[in-house]
């Protein structure tokens, strides 16, 4: 049964079935965060630590003829210089990283360029020196001879038959069948369902449009960093900002060709990631500098380094064609999707292709997707990777169909909604999902029911989907004699997950959230845990914490059986207490104290690899006002409804929704990598790469819908990603509603919108 929280700040109903879940305790790491005592990667200070600096390519595409480091090495104060020659030879091996995989040759080449630079900012060499000024001066002394090559900066240009090629080993792969010719198109994928021609023949209305989206960055506050110590015993320790310590460990070990057990990754607090802190850039380089110098070495990126040299998400071109009958039923849908992968294959076009029509019950469909390399930084994940681009296209076309058929956008979506039993175009059938409930929540909201008035004002509606993932997690919980529990886990905490995981342990044990002390620990201190990504941590690591609590329950029952001298079968764990025969009872605090004196320590362990993450849907409504003289769009009001399954900590669910919406608004209205014709990004600072701030936006209202996930003991669905999916489409639809201008390109920034307005006039 679905439940809906009415407005932000009100509790979503969990039907009173939980004591801890659904409450809003203060996060365990809150004091350290607000007092500035939390330690981030850049705060790492080790005895004898050396700073390092990187040489990066000023060119978007060039052959490396020679790299001469002799003058840099001769500079007084320089301790070591590394180039790709210092990296072990990487093979074409594909490493499975749990969530996704990576070609190690490409990864190695991205960390330090071997024979060709493929984007401006591509790392070529690094220096460790007595201070950062010497290191930077030495970088300037490295002499590089380039043979310039023409850059390819756009997906459509890169797909042309005569386009300059980035690689001499990429041929289009079509599910294991490789083309004969070299190409910038690394992969083609296709999905089909039903009879696409018959579907369009049955349509009374067909809308077909082409969309373009710009390259955008995750925009995390904290730049990448790594501090490495390659100890004399061969063990390597990395202190860094990462979304996944074990993934960082594996990548570092693979690139350095050492066993994973030789590498320990220590997670520092993380200032945002959103998918951009999964791939490694600095750790292998810092480690080699440390090996050469015998001292710890720290590398820090600048903001410009982050923009130019770390993975943004794909720019794309998408064509969507959709048909519907006069009753408003979708009869067919077709998409052609080309995503920029950046310098190496690996765009999120697969996920985009699987999401593009996922919100709808499409009887006949076809999707083609292309992964295309261009001379931009190697793309990385960004919240619901690939889905935002796709939703911009689909939801804009749906809006146009609704207009042509004079149908209410909410009712159209409800009538065509994905729901339990609907087969997606990529094949699988949906389990119980909450698409309809999120649309209904918006339809019934005060926002939707309140007419929007005023000149050049408009309202936009859009929905979005993201799969969420499960993957592996570990948790370990130690019962203290004072009735508290020390919880350690391996999921780096980006969005308050420590609190959400601790709450699930507390709920299971029947104790207060404040009585659980959660700590995120390094790779030597906890079992394997996959990345903090894919909206998986509250789901999967929460599940591991639940199992750890059940383990503790079992041990406490055994302990009570020993104390009471009775059969364990006669003892139960209920409401935070061990309950035995004849009215015998220990509260958790009592049995924790007893356990300290009788028998071995009580340590619960949980390891999980859950398979049913439950997909998540979100529906958004936005009101805008357009300044037709400047093209500036002002967001007047925004409401987002999302199915969270069960909201463990509603404040953090709201925070995730609000954060995702704000990033989606930035993506929709302003953000883009602006390149000149030489492939140089011209806006690689936050002054020029315009992200929205609190001054730009109203409060983002949230409605938490709860359609419990049957695949989780508490019904959790991931919440972190889907809120970024609908905003650009919702904004585009609102702009059209305001001034009749249909925007087909992101960002819908003032100059682009003004251009379209003037064309209309």
């Amino acid at each position, binding site marked *: 049964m679905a439940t809906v929280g009415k407005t932000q700040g009100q509790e979503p109903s969990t039907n009173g079935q939980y004591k801890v879940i659904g409450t809003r305790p203060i996060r365990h790491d809150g004091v350290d965060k607000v007092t500035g005592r939390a330690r981030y990667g850049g705060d790492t200070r080790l005895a004898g630590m050396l700073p390092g600096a990187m040489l990066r390519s000023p060119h978007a595409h060039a052959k490396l003829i020679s790299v001469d480091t002799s003058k840099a090495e001769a500079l007084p104060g320089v301790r070591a210089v590394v180039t790709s020659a210092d990296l072990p030879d990487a093979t074409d091996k594909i490493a499975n990283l749990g969530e996704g995989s990576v070609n190690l040759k490409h990864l190695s080449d991205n960390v330090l360029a071997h024979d060709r630079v493929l984007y401006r900012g591509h790392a070529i060499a690094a220096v460790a020196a007595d201070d950062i000024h010497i290191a930077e001066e030495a970088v300037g002394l490295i002499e590089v001879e380039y043979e310039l090559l023409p850059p390819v900066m756009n997906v459509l240009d890169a797909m042309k038959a005569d386009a300059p090629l980035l690689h001499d080993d990429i041929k289009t792969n079509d599910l294991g069948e490789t083309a004969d010719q070299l190409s910038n198109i690394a992969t083609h994928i296709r999905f*089909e369902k039903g009879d696409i021609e018959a579907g369009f023949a049955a349509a009374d209305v067909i809308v077909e449009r082409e969309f373009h989206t710009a390259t955008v960055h995750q925009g995390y506050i904290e730049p990448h960093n790594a501090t490495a110590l390659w100890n004399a015993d061969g063990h390597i320790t990395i202190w860094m900002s990462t979304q996944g310590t074990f993934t960082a460990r594996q990548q570092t070990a693979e690139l350095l060709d050492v066993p994973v057990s030789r590498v320990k990754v220590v997670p520092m607090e993380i200032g945002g990631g959103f998918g951009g802190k999964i791939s490694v850039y600095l750790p292998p380089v810092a480690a080699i500098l440390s090996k050469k110098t015998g001292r710890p070495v720290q590398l820090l990126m600048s903001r410009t380094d982050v923009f130019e040299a770390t993975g943004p998400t794909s720019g794309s071109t998408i064509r969507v064609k959709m048909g519907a009958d006069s009753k408003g039923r979708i009869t067919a849908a077709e998409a052609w999707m080309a995503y920029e992968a950046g310098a190496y294959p690996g765009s*999120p076009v697969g996920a985009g292709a699987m999401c593009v029509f996922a919100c709808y019950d499409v009887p006949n469909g076809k999707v083609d997707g292309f992964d295309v390399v261009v001379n931009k930084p190697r793309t990385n994940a960004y919240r619901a990777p690939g889905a935002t681009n796709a939703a911009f296209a689909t939801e804009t076309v749906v809006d146009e169909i609704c207009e042509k058929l004079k149908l209410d956008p909410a009712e159209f979506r409800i009538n065509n909604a994905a729901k339990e039993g609907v087969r997606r175009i990529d094949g699988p059938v949906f389990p119980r999902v909450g698409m309809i409930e999120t649309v209904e929540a918006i339809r019934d909201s005060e926002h939707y029911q309140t007419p929007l008035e005023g000149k050049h004002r408009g309202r936009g509606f859009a929905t979005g989907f993201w799969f969420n993932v499960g993957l592996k997690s570990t948790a370990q919980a130690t019962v203290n004699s004072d009735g508290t529990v020390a919880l350690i886990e391996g999921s780096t905490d980006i969005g308050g997950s420590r609190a959400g995981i601790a709450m699930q342990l507390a709920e299971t044990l029947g104790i207060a959230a404040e009585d659980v002390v959660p700590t995120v620990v390094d790779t030597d201190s906890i079992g394997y845990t996959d990345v903090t990504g894919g909206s998986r941590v509250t789901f999967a690591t929460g599940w591991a914490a639940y199992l750890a609590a059940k383990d503790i329950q079992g041990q406490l029952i055994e302990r009570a059986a020993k104390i009471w001298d009775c059969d364990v079968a006669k003892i139960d764990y209920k409401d935070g207490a061990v309950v035995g025969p004849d009215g015998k009872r220990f509260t958790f605090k009592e049995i924790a104290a007893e356990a300290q004196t009788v028998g071995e320590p009580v340590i619960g362990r949980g390891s999980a690899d859950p398979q049913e993450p439950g997909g998540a849907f979100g529906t958004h409504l936005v009101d805008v006002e357009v300044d037709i003289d400047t093209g500036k769009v002002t967001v007047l009001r925004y409401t987002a409804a999302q199915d969270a399954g069960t909201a463990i900590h509603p404040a953090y669910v709201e925070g995730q929704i609000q954060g995702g919406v704000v990033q989606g608004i930035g993506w929709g209205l302003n953000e883009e990598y602006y390149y000149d014709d030489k492939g140089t990004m011209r806006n690689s600072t936050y002054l020029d790469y315009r992200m929205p701030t609190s001054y730009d936006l109203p409060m983002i209202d949230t409605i938490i819908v709860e359609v419990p996930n049957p695949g989780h003991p508490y019904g959790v669905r991931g919440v972190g990603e889907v809120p970024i999916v609908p905003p650009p489409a919702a904004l585009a639809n609102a702009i059209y509603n305001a001034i009749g201008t249909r925007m087909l390109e992101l960002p819908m920034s003032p100059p682009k919108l003004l251009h379209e307005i003037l064309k209309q006039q």
Partner: protein
Amino acid sequence: MPTAFIPPALRKLTGDNDRITIEAHTVREAIAELEHKYPGIGARLTADGAIKPGLAVAVDGNVSSQGMLQKLQPDSELHFLPAIGGG
């Protein structure tokens, strides 16, 4: 019997059949059976005895972390999908 849904790129090998019923209790057995019926399909889906990198197998709607070892029920559906990552 379980049903394997054949991706469009592999349908040349299956005579344009998009769904194949197979006698199998695991994904490994299912792919072996497909290979037996349609030679060449196994190499498109697997490498070194595992599902190919970049590819995922979904059983009954959920991407499986068990890969070739994933158990199948008599009414199971198998789908071969792009492996995806989240942010």
